C-alpha cells in the first residue's frame, strides 16, 4: 500500500487526476490518496505541499507549473510527477527532457507548435496570414510564441499581437490587423479567461479563432488542438509506477503530448460560412453543435 499526494492548483485540471488514478488502479497499484487543491490560490501551494510532506507520501502528483514548483521546493526528498507543465526546463523543474536530473519528471502539456501549424493548415487551408494574440507577461504564452517563431513554414505568415494589460482587449479592433485570415490564441490564462471579449470582436469581422484551451472551443472558437488531460494523467501514472517500484525520477525522461485532441465547433463554422473538412471532423474527439 502506497501513499500518494496530489497537489492541484485548480479543479479545472481534475481530468488529469482522474486519468492518473484510474491508470494506477489498472496497473494494480493500491494507494491511499491525499488530494489537496489550492482552488486557484497560488500562494497556498507551498503550505499544501508541506501538508503532503507531513503525511510522508511516497510521491507527489502535481498538476500545473506552480504546483510542481511547490512540490519540488520541498526539502524532503519526495519524488514529483508533474503535468501539464508547458516548459519544465524553463520552470527549473528538470535539467533536460531526456535526463531530468532531479527529483521530478512528468509529461509536458504543450502541444507541439509543428502539430498546431499542421492543424491550422488543415482546418483553414487557404489561410495565409494568421495573428497570434498573447499577453506579454504570461510565461506559457511566451514559450509558445517563441516556438512559433522558430517554425520553418512557407504556408503561413504569423503576425504577433502582444497585449500588456487584459483591459487592452476592450479595444481589440484597434490592434487587430484587418488583413488576417485567422487568429491563433496560444496557451495563456489572461487570453483564455477573457475569451468572450475576443470572440465578441472576431465574430463581427468574421475572423475564425483557433484556440489552445479546450473550453474556448465550445465557447465559440472554430477549433483547437489541445492536450487531453486525462491522457496526460494516465501517462504520468506509468511514470509513477516506475518510481514506486524503485526507479529514480532523474533518469525517467519527460514526455510531451503525443496525440492531442482535435476539437471543432460546427455552430461557429456555420456562422462564419466555413465548411469543416470531413477528415478533420472524423478525427475530432468532439464537434460542438
Amino acid at each position: 500500500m502506497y501513499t500518494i499526494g496530489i497537489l492541484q492548483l485548480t479543479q479545472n485540471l481534475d481530468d488529469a487526476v482522474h486519468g492518473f488514478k484510474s491508470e494506477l488502479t489498472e496497473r494494480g497499484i493500491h494507494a491511499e490518496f491525499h488530494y489537496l487543491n489550492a482552488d486557484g490560490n497560488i500562494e497556498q501551494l507551498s503550505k499544501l505541499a508541506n501538508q503532503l510532506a507531513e503525511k510522508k507520501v511516497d510521491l507527489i502528483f502535481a498538476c500545473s507549473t506552480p504546483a510542481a514548483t511547490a512540490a519540488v521546493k520541498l526539502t524532503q526528498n519526495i519524488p514529483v510527477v508533474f503535468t501539464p507543465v508547458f516548459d519544465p526546463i524553463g520552470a527549473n523543474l528538470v535539467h533536460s527532457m531526456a535526463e531530468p536530473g532531479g527529483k521530478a519528471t512528468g509529461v509536458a502539456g504543450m502541444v507541439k507548435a509543428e502539430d498546431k501549424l499542421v492543424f491550422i493548415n488543415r482546418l483553414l487551408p487557404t489561410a495565409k496570414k494568421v495573428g497570434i494574440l498573447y499577453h506579454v507577461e504570461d510565461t506559457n504564452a511566451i514559450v509558445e510564441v517563441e516556438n512559433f517563431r522558430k517554425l520553418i513554414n512557407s504556408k503561413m505568415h504569423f503576425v504577433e499581437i502582444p497585449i500588456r494589460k487584459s483591459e487592452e482587449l476592450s479595444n481589440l479592433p484597434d490592434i487587430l490587423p484587418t488583413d488576417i485570415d485567422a487568429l491563433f490564441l496560444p496557451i495563456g490564462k489572461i487570453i483564455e479567461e477573457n475569451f468572450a471579449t475576443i470572440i465578441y470582436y472576431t465574430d463581427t469581422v468574421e475572423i475564425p479563432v483557433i484556440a489552445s484551451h479546450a473550453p474556448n472551443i465550445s465557447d465559440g472558437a472554430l477549433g483547437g488542438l489541445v492536450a487531453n488531460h486525462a491522457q496526460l494523467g494516465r501517462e504520468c501514472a506509468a511514470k509513477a509506477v516506475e518510481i514506486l517500484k524503485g526507479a529514480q525520477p532523474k533518469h525517467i525522461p519527460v514526455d510531451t503530448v503525443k496525440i492531442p485532441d482535435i476539437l471543432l465547433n460546427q455552430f461557429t463554422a456555420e456562422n462564419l460560412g466555413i465548411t469543416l473538412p470531413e477528415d478533420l471532423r472524423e478525427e475530432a474527439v468532439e464537434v460542438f453543435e
Partner: protein
Amino acid sequence: MLLTRDSVELLAPVGTWDVLEAAIEAGANAVYLGGKRFNMRMFKTTANFDDAMLAKAIEYAHSHNVALHVTVNNLISDRELDNMRSYLTLLDELKPDALIVQDLSILQLAREMNLSIPLHASIMMNTHNEHAVRTLQSYGISRVVVNREMSLSQLSLLKERTGIEVEYFIHGDMCISHSGQCIQSGVVFGQSSNRGRCLKPCRWPYQLVDATTGLPVGDRDPGPYKLAMKDMCLYTKLPELIQAGVTSFKIEGRMRTADFVSGIVKTYRKAIDSYIADPMGYTPDLQGWENLQNTRSRDFSTCYALGNPGATVIGYSGEREPRFFSQAVREANMTVIAKKSVPESTINKHFAPTLNVRVADLPSLIAACQNGANTIYVGGEVAKPAIPWTLKAMAQAVEEANKYDAKVVITTPRITMERECGELEQFFNTLSKVKPHGIMVGNLGALALARQNSTLPVQAEYSFNVFNHVTTQLLKNNEVKKATISLEATYEQIMKLVENSLLPLELIVHGSLPAMITDHSIPEAILNKQYQTNYDPVLDTKQYALLDTAGQQHLIMMDQYGRSNLLFAKDLCLLPHLHSLTPVQNYRIEGQYYTPELVGLITKIYRQELNKISAQQSTYHFDTSQLEKITAASPRELGIGTFRHRLSK
C-alpha cells in the same frame, strides 16, 4: 419557538460527486446541485450531474438522511420547452426533495404535469415582498430564496406574514444587481446571466465620471472595481440569522472543490450546533472565523443582512478577484449586421400596430401624443433630478392624452420591497380619481396588489422576464392582459414567442435601458460615504456615469428609492428591423430619459415607418434617412442590442 437541531438547515453547494460526499460528511443537512440541463452554472462541462448520476446522488443523499434540491433555475426559451417537460418528468420519477426554479413557466408546467416535488423559488425569481410570496404559494412554492437585498428584519416580517420557509445566502459570491434583473451579459454578449452564462460585467474596471463633462470625479477614487461585490459571510452573525427565523442557510459555490465546501460546512455546522445547544453561552469560535478567512477568495461582508452596507460591500481594488470572465466591449452599434437565423417574417396582413411611449413629464407626453402614440406610460422609477409623478400630474396626463385619443397606463417600480408595496397599495386605491386606462406592474407582488386594489387592466413589464409562451399562459391565468417581451430575447426567440403567445405582447424597440438595477448607490458610496446619515444635495442634482475600458459611458440613473439604474452605453434602436417584426404588433419607445423634442421626433418617425409598412406591405423599403434623423438628435449612440446575436445562450 424553541430551537432544536432541526430548526436550521445547512444547505451546501455540490458540483461533482466528491463534493457531494464531502459536504455530507462535513455535516450538511441538505445539498443542492444541477443536472446537465437548465441550471445556473452552465459554463463547465465537467460540473453538474447527468441523469444517471442524479439518480445515484439522490439515493446517496437520502441514505445519509440528507435532503437534495435540484436547481432547474434557468430562464427557458420556447424551443427548450419540450426538453424541459421531459426533464421535469424524469425529475418527478427521481424524487429529489425540491426543485429550485426561476422561470414562471415551470410553475405552470408543474401544475399541468401534476408534479409531486416541492418547488422552491430561486434567488433568480427576485422575490422580495409578501404579495409575491402569496402568489408563489398558490403555485405550490413552499420555500423562497429571498433576494440578497433583504435584511434579516425584513425577511423575518416576510416569514411571519406569509408562513413561507425562508432560504438565505449566508456565504459566498454575490451579485451587485437584483437577481434576475441584470441583462448586461445577455444583451451585450448573447450569454444570459439568467441562463447560467454570466460573463460578469460587474467585475470590469470602471471610472466614475461626471456625465456632463466626461471627466473623472475628484481624487476620491477608491479603485477601479466599482461594482465588485465582496463575498457574503454571516459567520459572526449566526445568532441574528437563527433568531430571524431563516430556515435554510445557503452556502454559495457549486463550482467549488470538495475541500473548500467541506471546510465551510464544518465551520458553520460546529457554530450552529454550539449555538443551538447553548444560545446564551454562545460566542463565535475564533478558529472557525480564521479558517474562513484563510480560505476566502474575496474579502467578506455581511452584505444587506444588517441593512444597506454602502461602500463597505465593494472590493474596489480588485486585488482579491479570483478570476475574470470578460473585459468591457463596445456595444453593437447600428452598422453591426443583425443575425436573423430564421427566415425574416413576412409582413403581417392584419397589421394594426400600436406605438406606445414611456415619458418622464407632461411636455413629453404631449409630444408623443401629437406624433402618433397610442399609449403613454407614466410613473414608476424616475431618475433624479426629475421628480416622481404626482397624482395631480397623472390626472393631467390622462386629460391631455384624452384630447388625442391616446391612453395612459400607469407604470410602477420594478422593485417593490416593503416600503414601495405600502405606497403602491395606497396609490392603487386612489387611482380611480386619476382615471388611467391601465396599470403596468414589475413583479408578481405588484401584480397581486394591483388586482386586489384596482379594477384596471394590468400589463406585465419586461422585468417579468417573459422568455417563452408558457409564461404568458401563467400571466393570463393571473388576469394579466398584455406582457412585455424579455429584453434578452433575440430575433428568433421573439418570433417563436409571439407565434405561440397566449397574450398580446409588446416589444421595446427604442430607448435608454437599464442593464442592471442595484440597491447600491454607486456615486454616493464613493463621493459621500456617510450618505445614509449625511445628505449631500449636490449628489441629487449631478449626473454621473461609469466609464468602461472600451471608452463607453454607462449613465447611472438614481431613482427616488435610492437605487442605481445602470444604463447600457448605447440606446436601443430597432427602427431598421420593424418590417420584419410585424407579428409583434405592439411596439414601445422607452423615452423617459429624453427631452420632449426628442420623444416627439422618435415617435413621429416610428409612426411614419409603421404606417408605411402597413400601406406598402411587401414593397416597403426602409429609408435610412429616417435613422439618420434620430441618430443626429440622440444624446447617445444607438445600437441593435440582442439583434447582434443569433440566439441568446
